[in-house]
């Protein structure tokens, strides 16, 4: 990448620089002035936008374990080209979450306390450990890509040997903490609005993250095609339509499973009358279900649409929007009535969040451009007799900004 290319101003570069600059100022203010002066959080609303984004970030990063399990445990190798982008997405998603958590802590200098001060009865303790362990797993899964780049062959052999146990560990950690985010709200049955409160909340969180994580990979594929190539990006990224169509079908299955579970939950707990109560919560619940579940199920039910780029892209946006609405509804909307406070994030909360998202997108772009993130089916993770990784980097050329 030439320095002139980097410095050449484009619309999104200018916008990104502005967002990051504002975010850095907000970060400085947050750490120098404290949470009370820079956020709209207080004792009645201790968790706000940042916690909501933690849920969103982790939920959208779920493709990391679903794709890895699909390919390496269930041996459906058709989806190998998705493994590395999924793992990179997961790693960056978790990195954003970790940064937001540190910013959100009242005493950020004590972030390491859960590592030595164990409270084994706390869901947050489990989440903390799962996040740490899964981030380690993601580093191990992505390490071969970095090692290949710098031609460090020896460790790749050992990473290959431990790859299956590492993937299995990743699936276990992900299953635990994805569902535990839902478990966090099991202790507030009187506070969380009954439209969202359910003893099945951990299962809801788990199923919805599978659908959204896969949709995120589809969405990202289009972003990559849009960012790197002037031609049909799929020819240059090895992310073929049939692979993405297969992922879309998995999204459909997960959405139907989640919807059926929700119907069962509403009937079993007698919550159906709540759907007729006119309130902000009800309208937002309808919006969430409509955008995030019903519309995508309808669109993905047609084979013609599932194989059409335009509809596939729009469907992925719908599913991602559904997860965004769901996580923010659970963490903010559903608690607003009981707290008695109408919370809206401060400028600094929004600014820091946007800065971290922009930095994650920049990091993805930089890594995808310089490392073998997009590789063909047959070469992914394979090592020949000399221990040389055979992964063939797809040349992402002719930037398209």
């Amino acid at each position, binding site marked *: 990448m030439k320095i002139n290319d980097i410095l050449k101003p484009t*619309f*999104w570069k200018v916008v990104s620089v502005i967002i990051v600059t504002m975010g850095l100022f907000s970060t400085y203010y947050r750490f120098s002035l404290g949470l009370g002066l820079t956020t709209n959080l207080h004792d009645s609303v201790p968790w*706000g*936008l940042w916690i*909501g984004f933690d849920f969103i970030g982790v939920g959208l990063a779920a493709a990391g374990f679903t794709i890895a399990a699909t390919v390496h445990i269930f041996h459906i*190798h*058709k989806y190998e080209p998705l493994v590395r982008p999924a793992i990179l997405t997961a790693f960056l998603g978790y990195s954003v979450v970790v940064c937001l958590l540190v910013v959100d802590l009242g005493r950020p200098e004590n972030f390491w306390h859960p590592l030595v001060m164990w409270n084994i009865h706390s869901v947050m303790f489990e989440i903390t450990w799962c996040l740490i362990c899964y981030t380690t797993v993601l580093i191990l899964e992505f390490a071969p890509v970095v090692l290949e780049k710098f031609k460090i062959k020896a460790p790749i052999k050992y990473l290959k040997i431990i790859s299956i146990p590492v993937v299995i560990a990743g699936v276990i950690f992900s299953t635990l903490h994805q569902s535990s985010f839902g478990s966090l709200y099991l202790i507030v049955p009187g506070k969380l609005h009954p439209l969202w409160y359910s003893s099945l909340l951990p299962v809801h969180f788990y199923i919805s993250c599978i659908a959204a994580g896969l949709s995120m990979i589809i969405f990202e594929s*289009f972003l990559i*095609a*849009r960012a790197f190539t*002037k*031609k*049909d*990006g*799929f*020819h240059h990224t090895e992310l*073929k*339509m*049939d692979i993405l169509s297969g992922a879309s079908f998995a999204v459909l299955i997960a959405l139907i499973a989640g919807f059926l579970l929700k119907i069962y939950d509403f009937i079993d707990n007698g919550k159906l009358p709540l759907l007729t109560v006119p309130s*902000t919560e009800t309208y*937002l619940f309808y919006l*969430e279900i409509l955008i995030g579940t019903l519309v995508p199920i309808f669109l993905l039910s047609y084979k013609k649409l599932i194989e059409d*780029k*335009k509809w*596939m*892209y*729009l469907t992925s*946006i719908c599913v*991602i*929007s559904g997860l*965004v*609405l769901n996580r*923010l*509804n659970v963490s*903010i*909307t559903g608690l607003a009535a009981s707290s008695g406070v*109408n*919370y*809206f*994030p401060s400028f600094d909360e929004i600014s820091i969040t946007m800065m971290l998202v922009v930095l994650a997108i920049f990091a993805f772009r930089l890594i995808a451009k310089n490392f073998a993130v997009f590789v063909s*089916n*047959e070469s992914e993770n394979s090592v020949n007799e000399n221990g040389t990784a055979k992964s063939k980097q797809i040349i992402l050329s002719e930037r*398209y900004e």
Partner: protein
Amino acid sequence: MVAIFVLALFLFILLVDLIVLRIQGKSHPAFEPALSQYDYLVHDGNVIHIPSNLFFSKGHTWLKKNKNGLMEIGIDPFGSTALGTLSILKCAEVGEELKRGGMIFEGSYGNKTVKFLSPVNGIVKSVNPGIIGKKISNPYESWGVQLVSNDSPENRDLFFSGSDALNWIKNEFSKLKYFIDDNSPIVEFVGETMYDGGSLSNDVVSLLLDQSINDFEKEFLSL
């Protein structure tokens, strides 16, 4: 309201991106205008026929096991027409032990020779002398080589069949347009309406750069 705000911001950014692309005169990959133009084939009358009993390798050979258990292998429609009409110059020899990836056919488009690789391991049982030195007009008319092989053509990780094969070959033809575009100094001579569904001239290969045939083998004939 936070949920609405975040969702609206997300959708607003996507909308602005589309507007920015529109101002730049470009299109988003998901909304490329008349996407079907890329699906047009590059040869007149080239309606791809995929027999249901054949399997296709990524090196553009077809294969099937006959009733005697021998693996019959030939060149697929893409391989036989990609850069002009293909002539077979030579085949692997009878009795030769072939490894997957070893040369099974050598052919030529005009004066440029290309190698087709064996999609399976096996020992050459017989070679069809009728295809040597002739242009392939119907790729399925006859097999080129028969192998004794224990490999299964039904391995879906290695071979395509049915609609998968059809989609894959169509995709290969679309890729070929980009390949020709990248490898021809004056693309207009190749077929100036190629991207709009126009046909290629019959002598495409002579209009490509010298090193292009090696790139063609790497891009399209490797396994």
